[in-house]
């Protein structure tokens, strides 16, 4: 039927119906539409099922790749570990009190070991002082 004929038909036709039957019919149509939508989509957002599958697969791939890269990277930012006791400095282990403790625990050998350790930590003094270092 041609469009102008359909328009004329709609203007002239008289439809006999009751409000209850009209509402029932509308409900039937909407329910059928909903069923059709659910069978063709994964969510209520209106994306096709295959799109959602691809999106999920892509997300999984991204997460796995990120983990692999981050755990191997030497420059990764790691969470700050709880602060543990720092290695004592040479000055700390050569106080009178510290050396006395070494004697109480290890005798003269204990004192000598601690002094040797202190010497390793401080080393010898630099023999050359560059100009840039002095300025």
């Amino acid at each position, binding site marked *: 039927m041609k469009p102008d004929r359909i328009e004329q038909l709609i203007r002239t036709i008289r439809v006999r119906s009751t409000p209850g039957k009209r509402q029932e019919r509308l409900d039937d149509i909407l329910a059928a539409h909903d069923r059709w939508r659910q069978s063709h989509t994964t969510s209520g957002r209106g994306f096709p099922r295959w799109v959602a599958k691809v999106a999920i697969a892509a997300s999984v791939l991204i997460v796995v790749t990120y983990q692999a890269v981050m755990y191997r990277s030497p420059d990764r930012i790691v969470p700050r570990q709880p602060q543990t006791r720092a290695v*004592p400095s*040479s*000055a*700390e*282990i*050569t*106080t*009178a*009190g*510290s*050396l*006395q*403790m070494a*004697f*109480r*625990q290890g*005798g*003269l050998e204990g*004192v*000598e070991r601690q*002094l*040797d350790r*202190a*010497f*390793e930590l*401080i*080393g*010898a*003094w*630099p*023999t050359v002082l560059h100009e840039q270092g002095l300025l």
Partner: protein
Amino acid sequence: MKSHNQNTRTICVILTLLAAGPVVQAYPPDPNNAALLYYQAFISLPKDQDQVQDLVEGLPDGADPNDQIREYLKLCQPAIRLAVAASEVPACDWGLRYSQGYQMSLTHLSQMRALARLMKGEVAVLVADGQYRQALERCLTLRQMGQHISDQNIISFLVGVAINALAEKAIQNTLSAMPPDIQTLVWLKGELAASPARRVEIKNGLKTEEEVILTKLTTDRGHLLEAVTGSTGAVPSELVEHLKNADEAFFEGSRRYFKAHMDAVVAVLNSPVPYLQRHDQLEQLDKRPGSDSKQNLHAVLTASLMPSVAKLLTLDTRARSNDNLLKAAIEIYLVKARTGSIPDQLPPGMPKDPFNGQDFKYEKTPEGFTLTRWTDDPAKDKNFQRTFKVKVR
């Protein structure tokens, strides 16, 4: 006319002397404090030579130093020359801050030990090159370094004992390598007799310990723990609890207990009884604060702070014994140098072993002789028997 000429000559002489005076004293005098020269020696030590340093320090007795060691010791010559100059200065004030108590820095002790081991390496090179007199001079420098490092505190005293032991070992190695020479041996005997046996005694260190502890045992709790136990040592938890809750009455009682304990210890050290008796008495005294602290809170700090004085006595007596043993060895070398043969028995009039007041045990060996002092623990006391070789020309 004649008197005018004489007056003119006199005035000229006076003016010349006045003019010469400022020229002679144009530069400051050399330091009269050996510690300043030692500090310069520490600064002069080469840097980043850890591996070679280990080679020098680990060089076995009597071994010939290799080229690497010789090259390294050449680099160390400025430091060695400064140490030799320092050893010739009588006074030695390290400038320690005793007011800091247990926080007093003793960093120079580790540097001095390193310098002493270098000197021992230098002795090995001189012996390998046949320069025995110079080697013995270096040994005497080492011995003087041991005297200089001893100060008015227990730890410095102990390091002095250890450096002196290095010197004695170096002398033993040199004597074992050189053909016995009367002139050199007489000179060495004289040098050992002339240098003081001790610059500082144990009781000096204990006296300083007493003054530090009595000053620090106060309610100034903020620094007490760190000050009295050392910043790196584990602090016993019961000590922490006592100090947290302590009031002035606790510290007053602790000071009284400590003073009484120290007086008892020093009384035993000063008594004329033999070593074994003093050692046994000191062992009992060392244990007393620990057992008293179970019922007397005032003994807790003494139990934590007091070093073992019985151990200190043993170390000191061992050092004196080694000193006498070395002098006895020199006498035997002199007999060999004068008569051409090693004596079958220990000659009379030898220095005695201070451990028991008796002669050292003497034995001839195919290569020389051994001298053995008394020891209570042969397993731990590694050097109680010394072997001396006699080199045939």
